[in-house]
């Protein structure tokens, strides 16, 4: 942030020879206000002006509690799965050179590019009891489609790129000499990983985990097909909001929406703190 000397007094922007400040900033602020701030404000106002008993009533609904548990539980589990496998994938993609590496690397972004509805119906087909993978799992007694397991699988797919893409630069930034130092001092490979590599990439791993988690909680398209949407069992929060809207319960929908929005902000805050921590710890911050 700009800090000028007291003599010059308070100025809200520093001088620049480049033109276009008023035009671009004005347009940015106006557009941002109309497209983003206005609807968010409507949501916040609607939720915060709701009568208290309506809030309590909505939050105490068993369907709501079950959906909260499923959405957060499955998102947490999926993010954890991604933390483990995403670490392996990111490691393999940055450290090893093998045939097909670039293809695999490009594939990581598929969940960003593929419409969620498409991945949704594809996942059901693969993991249904007669699906390519589902039949094997069903034979082992694990039902995936239309259970919380299916929800977790869908959220795992959605979360992969978040974990892998945050970890890759962190792994690339690791100095190979540090690992060599550990090995020359007598550390085993496993010890080197636990004591030297993992601590160095932990902030990135946590950031990726949180991003994947936040995305998973709000995900809708890829989940609803595989979830089966059985009340109290496989209903997720976003679906509940849509159901409330279809019942014209705008207040209830707004309360749930606001609750999730607030939780998203908490997670966003956590991510920012994590990144600040990483910068400070690695001595990059001021």
């Amino acid at each position, binding site marked *: 942030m700009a800090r000028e000397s007291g003599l010059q007094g308070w100025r809200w922007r520093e001088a620049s020879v480049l033109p276009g400040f008023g035009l671009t900033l004005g347009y940015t602020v106006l557009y941002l206000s109309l497209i983003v701030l206005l609807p968010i404000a409507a949501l916040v106002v609607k939720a915060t002006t709701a009568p208290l008993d309506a809030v309590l009533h909505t939050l105490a609904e068993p369907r709501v509690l079950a959906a909260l548990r499923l959405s957060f539980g499955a998102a947490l589990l999926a993010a954890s799965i991604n933390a483990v496998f995403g670490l392996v994938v990111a490691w393999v993609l940055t450290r090893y050179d093998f045939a097909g590496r670039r293809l695999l690397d490009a594939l990581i972004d598929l969940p960003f590019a593929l419409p969620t509805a498409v991945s949704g119906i594809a996942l059901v087909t693969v993991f249904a009891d007669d699906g390519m993978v589902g039949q094997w799992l069903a034979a082992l007694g694990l039902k995936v489609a239309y259970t919380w397991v299916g929800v977790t699988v869908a959220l795992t797919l959605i979360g992969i790129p978040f974990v892998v893409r945050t970890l890759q630069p962190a792994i690339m930034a690791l100095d190979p*000499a540090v690992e*060599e*130092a550990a090995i*020359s*001092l*007598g*550390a*085993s490979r496993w010890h080197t990983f636990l004591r030297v590599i993992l601590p*160095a990439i932990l902030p990135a791993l946590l950031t990726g985990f949180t991003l994947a988690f936040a995305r998973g909680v709000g995900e809708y398209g890829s989940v609803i097909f595989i979830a089966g949407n059985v009340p109290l069992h496989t209903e997720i929060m976003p679906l509940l909001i849509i159901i409330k809207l279809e019942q014209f319960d705008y207040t209830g929908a707004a309360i749930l929406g606001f609750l999730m929005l607030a939780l998203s902000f908490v997670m966003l805050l956590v991510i920012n703190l994590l990144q600040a921590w990483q910068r400070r710890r*690695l001595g990059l911050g001021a």
Partner: protein
Amino acid sequence: MSIRFEQVTKRYRGVPVVNDVTLEVAKGEFFVLLGASGSGKSTLLRGIAGLTDIDHGRIALHGRDVTFVNPRDRGVGFVFQHYALFRNMSIADNIEFALRIRGVPAARRRERRRELLRLVALEGMDERLPSQLSGGQQQRVAVARALAHEPGVLLLDEPFGALDAKIRTELRRTVREVQRRLGTTTILVTHDQEEAFSLADRIGVMHMGRLLETGQPQQLYRQPATRFVATFLGAANLLLGEVATPYRVRVGQAMINHASQARPDAVSSTEVVTVVRPEDIELARHRQVLANPCLGEGQVLETSFGGGVGRLLVQVGAGANLRAAARVDAQVHPGLAPGACLLEVTRTAAEAMAMPLAAGDSIALGVRRLHVLPTPVSSFLFRAPTREAVLELRQSPLVAQLVQSTRANLSETIVAEEQPGTATLRSAGLVVVDNTGRTPAEIASLVAHGARRLLCVPRGAALPRRVIIHCPDDAPQGEAMGLVASLVRHINAEATFVSVMRRDAVAAERTRVLRRLLDTRAEVRASHGLDLRTELLEGAVSEQLLALASGPDPALLVMGIDGDRAEIEAALVRDLGWLFDADARWPLLLSYSGPRPAALAAVL
């Protein structure tokens, strides 16, 4: 012996980056590996630590062969250029890392850590994070960390490279002091010769993957054995001289005594390369007042002030008959007269004060001291029928590489084929001819006419990756080995000395051949500091050599010969007849060690 390598070789994509390095470092010695970037010194160091696998050879630490031992079990301490501290751990945790792994109890760890921090003058920094320390302090921590588990060997890879000059000197002193106190055998890698001089008990100079020379700093500076070391360690004027008597050399107009008989093959009028250090040149207004033999008279081209010493560039005109042994082709000084020889001279401030000089002043130059290099390749002589043929010869990859790397003088004689040799053949360092379509008889004739060192390069010969050395049983090998030792330092190739014996050889014969092989290797290592591979083959000489030369990597053949013209021709036909086939692409290097031909002796 504390560290011992035996023919250590490391290849990257087939090219050796560390080439047959054999070295012993004594217990408690501080050894510095000095070389330009890309000379293979860091790879060698990483090979000792096990951070890089080696392709050939053995490494032993304290008498224990560790070639295939895990890096974590080698018990070495390694210090990296960019510190490589564990950034998420405190200084204390960094230093105790190796001890923790070895399950040392906390109290003992703490004690050791305090001791080390005191040693590197960082007491009280225990709980800081690496990011809170300066670069110099971080490197001190890295040194302490590498020493924590009391390794028998400390390896430092350009440890001061990332630091600024003042801190570098300070840290250098600390490292030297710590090493002396602990008596840890140490190898340090650097490209900075000043650093090498100030730290080393012994220096090893690396170039193109080979360990060229090792020795105490003084000795390497005073008596280098190779052009590379002479010019890499400090400034040097390389001048061509001519042997007058075994202990006297003629350089320019001066006749100078030198301490040792440097060239074993030195006979009268042999061309030699001499090293004259800039501080060993005396300047005076007139030759009469020179205290030392006069090199010639010249003119100051340029003076520059350098604090304690003043540096001058002086040219000695063509008339003085002074010839440089190194080409100055890149940046010819604008004031340099054609045919003149450019010399670098340094004077102390007191000398400069006593006799101020400016560009354009005429002066006389004297030589206080010189050193004769043992290299037989003092210059290249290209012999071809036309100018174009000379140029084509020079563009052959092998010749181009040698010319570029040795920077030796070039000359050419354009003579029609079949014309017998001239006197120039006799004095030349290495004669280079095109071998396309030649017969053994022609080659033998060239040798007999005085081309004692002859490189025959056929059209289309690739840059060799292997050197195959063959000396027929009865030929003395000393000169051939000296020539090989001089040349292989300038190409990235693996040199193998080959002996071939008959399949039906009796036991005594086998023993003799084997002994000769090993003796040769030991002798080459002792007198030329070069390590050779050896290979013992069975069968017909010609057949076996052809099989070896036909391997996947291009090869250069070296043959040591003696005898008269007919004998030379016979030896060529017998052992290397296939080399004269129309489509053969192998370059051939001949080293003749017989007596001087009578015809030429008469000329002298």
